[in-house]
C-alpha cells in the first residue's frame, strides 16, 4: 500500500508544486508596503494600464522583477545544490555551505572594489552587469574545482564540509582586505549587495540574470542522465560508459553559472541549495534526476517566493533580509539530516 501512495505522490508532485509556484507568485506581487487591489494587479500583469500610474510603476518596476528574481534564485540555487550533492556524493553539499557562493562573492568584490580604484565607478550599463556575473561564475568555478580536488582525496563527508567552511572563511578574509582598501561609495554599495536581497535587481540586470539561469538550467537538463549514473560513484559511472570528463565539465559549468549568477546580483543567499533537494526527495523518495530535477526546480522557486513573502511581514513596513528567512527554513533541514544520518557520515 505505501508503494502505491508513493507512486501517486511521484505523479502528482510536479503539477501541484507548479500550481503552488503560480499562487505564491501572484501573492508575492500582491504583498508590499503599498496596498494594491487584486483586480488592478491582475489588470497590470495582463498588460493593461491601471488607473493609478504609481501602482503601475510599483508593480512593473519593483514587484514583478522581485518575484521573477525570487523564482530564478530559487530554481538556480536548488538545482546547483542538487547537482553538487550528486557529483560529490555528499548529502551536505550546497553552494553556500561549500563556499561556492563565497567564491562568487570574491569575483564580485574584485570587480566592485578591486577595480574601482583604477577605473573609478563608471557605469557602463549592461556590459558592467555581464562583467559582474562572469566574475561571479569564475569565482564559483574556482572554489568548485578546489572542492573537487579535495573530495577526490578525502572520502569523509564531514571533512569536506569543514574544508568548504574554511575555504569560505579564507575568501571572506580576502574580501575584508579588499573592503579595507576600497573607496567609501563603492564600499557602501558592496556592503548593501553582500546583505543579500531579491529587490535590488534592476530590469537590465534581470535580463542578464534570466538568460544566465536559463543557460545553466539547460545545461543541467542535458546532464540529467549523467547525474543519474554519478549517483553510484565514479567507478560505477565509468563502468557504465559515462564520459567522466565531459560530465564534470558540463555539470560544473552549470553549477557555477547557476550559483554564480544569483550571487552576482542578489548577494549570497544561504541554505536553499542544500535544503530544497532534501525536502523534494523526502516527498518523492526517488533519486532519478529526470523527475528530481524539475521537481527541485519548482520546489526551490516556491520556497524562495515563500521566503520573500515572509520577509515582508504582511501589514508592516519592515522588510527583513531574505537571507535570514532562508537560513531559518534551511538550517532545521540540515540539522535534521545530520541527526538522521549520524554515524553514516564517518564511513
Amino acid at each position, binding site marked *: 500500500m505505501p*508503494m502505491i501512495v*508513493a507512486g501517486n505522490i511521484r505523479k502528482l508532485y510536479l503539477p501541484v508544486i507548479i500550481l503552488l509556484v503560480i499562487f505564491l507568485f501572484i501573492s508575492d506581487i500582491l504583498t508590499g508596503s503599498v496596498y494594491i487591489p487584486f483586480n488592478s494587479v491582475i489588470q497590470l500583469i495582463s498588460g493593461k494600464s491601471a488607473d493609478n500610474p504609481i501602482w503601475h510603476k510599483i508593480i512593473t518596476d519593483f514587484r514583478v522583477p522581485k518575484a521573477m528574481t525570487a523564482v530564478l534564485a530559487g530554481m538556480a540555487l536548488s538545482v546547483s545544490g542538487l547537482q553538487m550533492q*550528486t557529483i560529490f*556524493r*555528499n*548529502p551536505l553539499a550546497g553552494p553556500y555551505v561549500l563556499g561556492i557562493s563565497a567564491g562568487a562573492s570574491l569575483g564580485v568584490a574584485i570587480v566592485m572594489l578591486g577595480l574601482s580604484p583604477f577605473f573609478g565607478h563608471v557605469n557602463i550599463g549592461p556590459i558592467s552587469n555581464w562583467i559582474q556575473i562572469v566574475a561571479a561564475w569564475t569565482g564559483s568555478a574556482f572554489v568548485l574545482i578546489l572542492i573537487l580536488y579535495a573530495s577526490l582525496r578525502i572520502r569523509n*563527508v564531514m571533512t569536506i564540509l569543514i574544508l568548504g567552511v574554511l575555504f569560505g572563511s579564507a575568501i571572506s578574509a580576502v574580501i575584508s582586505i579588499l573592503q579595507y582598501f576600497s573607496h567609501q561609495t563603492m564600499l557602501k554599495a558592496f556592503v548593501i549587495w553582500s546583505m543579500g536581497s531579491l529587490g535590488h535587481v534592476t530590469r537590465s540586470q534581470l535580463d542578464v540574470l534570466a538568460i544566465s539561469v536559463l543557460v545553466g538550467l539547460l545545461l543541467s537538463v*542535458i546532464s*540529467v*542522465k549523467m547525474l*543519474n*549514473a554519478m*549517483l*553510484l*560513484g565514479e*567507478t*560505477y559511472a*565509468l*563502468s*557504465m*560508459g*559515462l*564520459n567522466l570528463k565531459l560530465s564534470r565539465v558540463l555539470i560544473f559549468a552549470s553549477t557555477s553559472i547557476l550559483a554564480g549568477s544569483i550571487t552576482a546580483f542578489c548577494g549570497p543567499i544561504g541554505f536553499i541549495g542544500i535544503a530544497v533537494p532534501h525536502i523534494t*526527495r523526502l516527498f*518523492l*523518495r*526517488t*533519486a*532519478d534526476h*529526470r523527475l528530481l530535477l524539475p521537481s527541485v526546480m519548482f520546489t526551490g522557486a516556491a520556497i524562495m517566493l515563500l521566503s520573500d513573502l515572509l520577509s515582508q511581514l504582511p501589514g508592516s513596513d519592515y522588510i527583513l533580509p531574505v537571507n535570514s528567512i532562508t537560513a531559518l527554513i534551511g538550517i532545521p533541514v540540515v540539522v535534521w539530516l545530520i541527526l538522521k544520518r549520524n554515524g553514516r557520515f564517518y*564511513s
Partner: protein
Amino acid sequence: MINTEHNQTATKSLIHLEYIDIGYVRPSSGLLALLNNINLSVKAGEIIGLVGRNGSGKSTLLRTIAGLHHPLGGKVLINDQTVHEISGIERAKLIGYVSTEQIIADHIRVNELVALGRFPYTNWIGTLSDDDKTIIDNAINMTGINELREKNISQLSDGERQKAMIARALAQNTAVIILDEPTAFLDLPNRYHILRLLNELAHIHQKTIIYSTHDLNIAFNESDKLWLIYNGKILEGAPEDLIITKGFHKLFENSDIDFNNNTSEIFMRRTYIGNIHVQGDRELNYWTCRALERLGLLSAGDKPALASVITGYKYNKAFWSLHYMNTIQDFFSVYDLISGIKNIINITKNN
C-alpha cells in the same frame, strides 16, 4: 592429437591478457608495479576466481581488465578488441563491473538501480524502451529480488544489496561480468547464494565471470579456474591443478596458516609443545585431538608423552580419563579435559 586441436578451436578464448604490467603511476615516486608480464586467457562461460594476499593487486587487476584502469604495459583483448582503445559506451556493452564500494546516495530504489544498467543503451535523457524494461525485469527475476523492487537500497541487507548490484550488471547485458569481492561482508549462506547465482550465470547463461575473494573455500570449490597471485606473478589452473602442483600452498608462505592437501582444510601453524597420547573411541579421539592441537599438543610426535587420555562411553555418556604421573582424573566434556591438561602444562613449565 586431432581431438585436442578440435577442442581448442571449439572453445576459443574470449579474453586475452597479453604481457600486462599492472600498477600505478605515482607523481612523487614514479611507477609502482604490482604485477609484471601477465599472460592469461578466459574462455566464454567460464567462472574465474582470483585469490591473493591483501595488497597483491587483485582489485587493480580486475579494474584493469574492466578497462577502468590503464595497464602500465601490454594489452587486454576482449573479442579481439583492445579494451582500453574502444569508447566508454562500447566497453560498457562488453563488460559489467561490480565492486564493494558503498553507495552513499539516499532514496535510490532497487528498480532505479537496476535500470541504471541500461545506461549504455538509452538515449540522451535515459528513456527506457519496452525492451529495456523486459531486460530489467529479467535481471531482477534472475537475481531473485522481485520483492525488493520498490525498496530503498539503504534499507537492504548486505546480501540483498549485493544481489541488486549484480542485477544492475546483468541489465547492462554484457558478455563479461567482473566482481571485486562479491562475498565480502556477507554471512555464510549469503556467500554461497551469491556464488550459486554466479555459477548459474556462467554455466546456464554463458556469462563469463571473473571474481576476487578472500574466501579460499569458495574460490576452491566454485571456480572453473583459479588465478592465484603470488610474488608479482599469477599462477593459473583448475583449483585441483594448483593443489597438485603445490601452487595453492604458496599463498600461505610466511603466514600463520597452511593448507592440508588431504582434507583441503586450512589450518593454523602452531608451536609444537609436546605429546599427549590419546586412545579409545574413534570419534571422541578425533575431536579430542583437534582440541589438543589448539594447545600445540599432538597425539603422536617426537617428544615423550606428557600424559595420556583414554576416551570412551560410560552409561551412554562420553568420558575422558587423564593419566598423568600416578594420578587418574575423569572428565565429562572436552572443555573440562582441556582445563585439566592446561594445569599439567603449567606444572611442567614451573618445574
